């Protein structure tokens, strides 16, 4: 079969960092081609070259047998190459419909037509989002879906999905896979980048693995398995995804939440977390998990109910109070809430606990800072040129590691992780699970929100399941299974239809 697009010998450097060192890649019509590799391997960079967002230092792009010379993303789009970027590029103050048609808006907007057209795109692919909703107010998973709809609304011969499922729950991810299969049936060439290898194996026809900016190889999916792909990615075989838990003593009750509620999003939630315990918070997107976390952290106001830390009632007015009390929250929206993206890695990493790196006059002890953060970033296998470089120069997964570093450095007593491994590669994921286990073993109370069921099953002592703003039940390790979790998540019946957009 002839390739739609061929990339030949692509090289790209940023300053001294060689992101790509001569990569070959091709996309055939009617295939799903997975692009895999560790964080910072160069996947997004390669796709940005394909999409005309950046230009390569060397190498050629051959479209339909002819060498293409892109001057910008518009040229690539014109030849039918659509991108769904890893980092969302939406206008938060505009509506869903406006975002979908941004760049193609007519001079005079007919709102009714625009909303109808957007509604059709969303419907056609089975997304339940109102075209009039303001994008910035949607949860991050639905924002991701708007980003996808934006690319799907255009005529495409090639669509690149750069980690579209990192924030999606299993159900939405499955729907997305159906869409990919539809596109494949229409003869579109699909590139799929993901760190969720089990998902990749469900749909991919071929797989290309990158490592440190070089191609390790391209294989047919049917000729390989997850273990082989992992060893191609990390250069060694990995023993187990979920590390053995150290001996951990479950201690006193650290957090107790009583009848916590706000509006229609959170309806009277009760639970507790003990020292040394890792408690999961599962459920569908929009079930109120993030809202619960933000209320405990003082980032959102509490309407009803009480929060107790070590038996004492807390009255938090802001995250400032929360951090002082020893509560940490790793937020799900990395770019908007997690990092100051133009600021250095080390500045971001110490931001939640600057007391550790300042003297009593407020002067920063730069050498202490560099030493501590280098230690942390090594533990997290963060791949960067220099810890003084801005976070914006990192790959997506490595940016996530900066957010992790920040909260590990803060070292609170209760740590809430909202999607901790979003976009992180398998090797690092395993490291992070090990670190979370270690935190619990050190006597911290840990609450983990995740849309990835395996993650919850792998590290949690028990899982609380939310649906429609209320706690629907609790699962203990013997009962850990997708069916049980989904059963509880949709217990209220209407969740299936409304869960996604009732936020």
């Amino acid at each position, binding site marked *: 079969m002839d390739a739609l697009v061929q990339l030949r010998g692509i090289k790209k450097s940023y*300053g*001294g*960092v*060689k992101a790509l060192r001569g990569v070959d890649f091709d996309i055939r019509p009617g295939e799903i081609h997975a692009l895999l590799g*560790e964080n*910072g391997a160069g996947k997004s960079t390669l796709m940005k070259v394909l999409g005309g967002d950046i230009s390569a230092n060397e190498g050629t792009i051959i479209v339909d047998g002819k060498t293409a010379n892109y001057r910008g993303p518009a040229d690539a789009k014109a030849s039918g190459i659509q991108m769904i970027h890893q980092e969302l590029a939406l206008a938060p103050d505009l509506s869903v419909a406006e975002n979908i048609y941004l760049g193609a808006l007519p001079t005079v907007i007919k709102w009714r037509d625009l909303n109808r057209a957007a509604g059709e795109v969303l419907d056609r692919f089975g997304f339940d989002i109102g075209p009039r909703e303001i994008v910035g107010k949607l949860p991050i998973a639905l924002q991701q879906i708007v980003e996808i709809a934006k690319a799907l609304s255009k005529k495409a011969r090639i669509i690149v999905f750069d980690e579209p499922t990192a924030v999606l729950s299993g159900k939405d991810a499955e729907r997305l896979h159906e869409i990919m299969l539809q596109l494949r049936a229409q003869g579109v060439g699909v590139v799929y980048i993901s760190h969720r290898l089990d998902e990749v194996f469900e749909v991919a026809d071929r797989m290309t693995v990158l*490592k*440190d*900016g070089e191609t390790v190889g391209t294989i047919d999916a049917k000729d390989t398995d997850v273990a082989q792909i992992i060893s191609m990615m990390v*250069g060694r075989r990995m023993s187990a995804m979920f590390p053995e838990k150290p001996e951990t003593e479950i201690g006193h009750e650290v957090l107790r939440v009583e009848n916590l509620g706000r509006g229609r999003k959170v309806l009277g939630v009760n639970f507790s977390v003990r020292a040394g315990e890792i408690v999961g918070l599962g459920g569908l997107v929009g079930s109120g998990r993030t809202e619960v976390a933000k209320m405990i*952290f003082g*980032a959102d106001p509490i309407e009803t109910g009480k929060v107790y830390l070590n038996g004492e009632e807390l009255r938090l007015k*802001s*995250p*400032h109070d*929360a*951090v*002082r009390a020893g509560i*940490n*929250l790793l*937020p799900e929206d990395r770019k*908007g*809430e*997690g*990092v*100051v*993206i*133009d*600021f250095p890695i080390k*500045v971001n990493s110490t*931001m*939640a606990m*600057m007391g550790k790196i*300042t003297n009593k*006059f*407020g*002067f*920063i002890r730069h050498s202490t800072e*560099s030493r501590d953060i*280098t230690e942390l*970033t*090594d533990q997290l*296998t*963060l*791949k*960067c*040129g*220099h*810890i*003084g*470089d801005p976070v914006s120069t990192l790959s997506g997964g490595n940016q996530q590691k900066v957010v992790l570093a*920040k909260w590990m450095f*803060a070292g609170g007593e209760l740590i809430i992780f909202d999607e901790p491994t979003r976009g992180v590669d398998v090797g690092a994921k395993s490291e992070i699970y090990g670190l979370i286990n270690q935190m619990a073993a050190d006597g911290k109370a840990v609450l983990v929100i995740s849309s990835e069921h395996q993650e919850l099953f792998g590290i949690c002592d028990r899982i609380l399941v939310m649906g429609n703003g209320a706690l629907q039940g609790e699962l203990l390790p013997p009962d850990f299974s997708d069916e049980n979790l989904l059963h509880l998540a949709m217990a209220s019946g209407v969740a299936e239809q409304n869960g996604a957009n009732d936020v």
Partner: protein
Amino acid sequence: MSSKATGGTSEVIEKRPFDKAEFIEKYSTFGIFLILVVVATLWTDTFLTERNMLNVLRQVAAGTGIMAVGMLFVILTRGIDLSVGSIQALGSVLCGYYIVQLDISIWFGIPLVLLSGAACGAITGLFVAYLSLPSFVMSLAMMAMARGLSLVYSQGQPIVLGKAGAAITEFGSGRFLNVPMPVWLMAFIFIVAGITLNFTKYGRIIKAIGSNEEAVRLSGINVPRYVASVYVISGVLAATAGIIAASRTGIGSSQVGVGAELNVIAAVVIGGASLMGGRGGVINTLIGALILGVMTNLMNLAGVPGYHQQVWMGVIIAVAMLLHFSVTKIKN
């Protein structure tokens, strides 16, 4: 500092490579300044004399220089303070009011003036920080109020400092190592500000707030307190500029600093600070203020008529902006 690339075979980069865009960004303001100085030197014989240089410095100190530091802090947090010119006038008037009319000794009078400036800044700051009102509007309100108060306290008449305020006027015309005292004061303020911005927690947080306020808030930092504080700093420094104005002319006048806020903002922006917050430095701000000072001086020496001067000022702002813009372009 050791640099390190973890994971796989990627090489260890020992030194951060030379970055063209970063270089231009750092030194473009200085470049404009140098060009301007060369032009001025060639154009007139009087420019490069010690007397004239000190004159320029003194004008900058009494004019935009000191206030530009406060404005820089505000702009770093993505705010704007339009009230500085008015607070300067109020500072100048209160100097006379407290010391001459209320007969307070200058040891109490001067701190009182500074405190009044702080109070004005605090009012703006509290509204902006805790009620999330736009700084543009709140400082506009304070601009009107402070100017009004300066008229009220002076009853529209200049207050002559005379004998009671002799110490102040002595400061204004005094010199140390042949350099005017106000210039020393300005240098001191710039040094303190530079240390604060580059070496302290406070400076780091101020810049981060302008870049991504939500991320800073969710890091457990008391953002409103920091935001409010920059307006207080700006208010104090504007009042300081008012005292210097009074010390140089010997009168407290409500007509000081009319339109000064625009020059002050111009100095900060020419210095490469971004109105979108998070980016800007003290040294470049000083150079920005000096550029405006040298421009004015040059045009005076060259006999450019007053009305034309304004046009040229606009041109230099536009040129500086264009340069900064091209840097951002290169970067992407």
